[in-house]
């Protein structure tokens, strides 16, 4: 139920992409996503260049292309939300077919809009994956700090990240314990939903109290070791010339993509 691999998004390596300053990577990922949203529907050439640029980054980072492709499917279920646009946008009919009693017609305008949304979402999620796969989460935190995100939020995020795995395992143990105690014969009646919900609610309450009490212990332990309300880091995180160069490449590439998308 709780797979180690689902949490291991970071792919350790020493590539030039990994070594880039986290600020550059955060801005780059957000920049690509922003550029995607700004491209008009059907700007296939620009979308294609964006995709190729991402593939080059994946190769430079030394991550398996299949890893990125597989993870990029997370956004797929949401496509259901947009699928109806295929049939409802007025335009030239392309294909008609019948499902049960519905007569559905795909229009050219609908197809254009739908595939554009799909491609936009797919390229955007890959940009986010590359960021997470090449940057350790604490480094993302430091990058956000240099980008002037409020310190309180980053402190909360860092603590959350630190205890995410601990509490997820705690939750998994609760779920396993429930499964172990809830054996039932194949033809026995299902317990009522209300009862099950109460059970799940008690588990949530239990988990809450354990977390709450843990936070007390964590704080006391930190104070005992000299915590003064600030996170310190040994990595300097200064922008060197390679970082500025990387940022410049990304920005000029994005401008080029925008020009191509809007004028060709």
């Amino acid at each position, binding site marked *: *139920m709780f*797979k180690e691999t*689902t949490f291991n*998004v970071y792919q350790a390596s020493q590539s030039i992409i990994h070594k880039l300053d986290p600020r550059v990577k955060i801005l780059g*990922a*957000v920049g690509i*996503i922003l550029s*995607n*949203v*700004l491209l008009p529907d059907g700007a296939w050439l620009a979308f294609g260049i964006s995709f190729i640029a991402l593939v080059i980054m994946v190769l430079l980072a030394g991550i398996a292309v299949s890893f990125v492709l597989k*993870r990029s499917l*997370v*956004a797929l279920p*949401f496509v259901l*939300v*947009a699928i*109806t*646009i295929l049939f*409802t946008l*007025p335009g030239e009919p392309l294909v008609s077919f019948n499902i049960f009693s519905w007569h559905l017609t795909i229009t050219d*305008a609908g197809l*254009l809009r739908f595939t554009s*949304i799909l491609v936009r*979402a*797919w390229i*955007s*999620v890959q940009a*986010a*994956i590359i960021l997470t796969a090449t940057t350790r*989460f604490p480094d993302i935190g430091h990058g956000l700090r240099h980008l002037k995100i409020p310190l*309180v*939020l980053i*402190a*909360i*995020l*860092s*603590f*959350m990240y630190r205890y*995410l795995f601990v*509490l*997820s395992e705690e*939750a998994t143990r*609760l*779920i396993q314990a429930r499964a172990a105690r809830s054996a039932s014969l194949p033809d026995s009646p299902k317990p009522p*939903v209300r009862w*099950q*919900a109460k*059970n*799940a*609610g*008690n588990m*949530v*309450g*239990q*988990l*809450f*109290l354990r977390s*709450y009490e843990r936070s*007390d212990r964590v*704080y006391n332990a930190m104070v005992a070791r000299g915590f003064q309300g600030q996170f310190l880091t040994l990595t300097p995180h200064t922008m060197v010339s390679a970082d500025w160069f990387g940022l410049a490449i990304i920005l000029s590439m994005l401008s080029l993509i925008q020009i191509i998308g809007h004028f060709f």
Partner: protein
Amino acid sequence: MNHSPAPLHIPDGFLNIVISVAFWLATILIVGLAIRKSKATLKERHIPLMGIMAAFIFAAQMINFPVAGGTSGHLLGGALAAVVLGPWSGILVMTSVISLQALLFQDGGLLVMGANIFNMGILTALIGYGLFQIVKNQDRGIQFAGIAAAAWLSVLAGALTTSFQLWLSSTSPAGLVFPAMLGVHLLIGIGEALITVAAFAFITQVRPDILRPQSAEGNGKYGWVIVGSIISLLVVLISPFASTDPDGLERVAENLGFLGQAQDTPFSFLPDYTIPFLGETEFSTIVAGLVGIIIIGLIAFFIGKAVQKPAPVEEHTHSN
């Protein structure tokens, strides 16, 4: 991945730029306010507490139980966080949960994160805390009913604003997205309500002392009640209208669009469902902008009201 991606985590690419930016602005405004307000009450020891509470919400979203038809009941957590931790802390905790889900697991996008935080973190906390304040001093049965209603409505509110964002971005037609989203979340909300009430009952029975400290954060009780009630009322009024009469919604939007357009542009009105090219004054852009501004204005207004409550009013209402 076991933390089931609820259909409310919008990925990048599904919302247009105007909607994304408008909701980022609204979210920055409110989260910024939450940081400012909580600085007064937050002590150093609360930082680990909030981080661990955020991890708790994330882990609690893994706990589920089967409901009819293959769907499962699980927790979104915004209402519970606000009830147990207080409104500002609840908002900060949910903001962290949603940011981390996007940054680490690509569960929800980065550019649309403002919208996601608004839908799942801010609205849920405001409704949860506001309605809880109404029933706080009643006996347990009424408390539970109030919390159940708050949890259910918070999910519905998230579904409603998500539908609005998708529709105004021309990603889904109104006639389908409203009935589908609201219909599904009517059920999902029941799971949320049941778990939230059971968890609340458990916590208050085992550690009744935990709920006390947050009363310091809930200054201006009436303000929270008003904000929570107004958002809830809007959800209750708009949801049935939006899901049964989407055409009516289109007419309203069309009128709004006409209003905005008549003033400054010579362009003739384009029929609805045109593809929005950015930067051009078109139906969806104008409506999106207007709605964004109205939402931000309303929220800023009510939060401002909530924060600066005159002291004499609350003196004789606080029982503790």
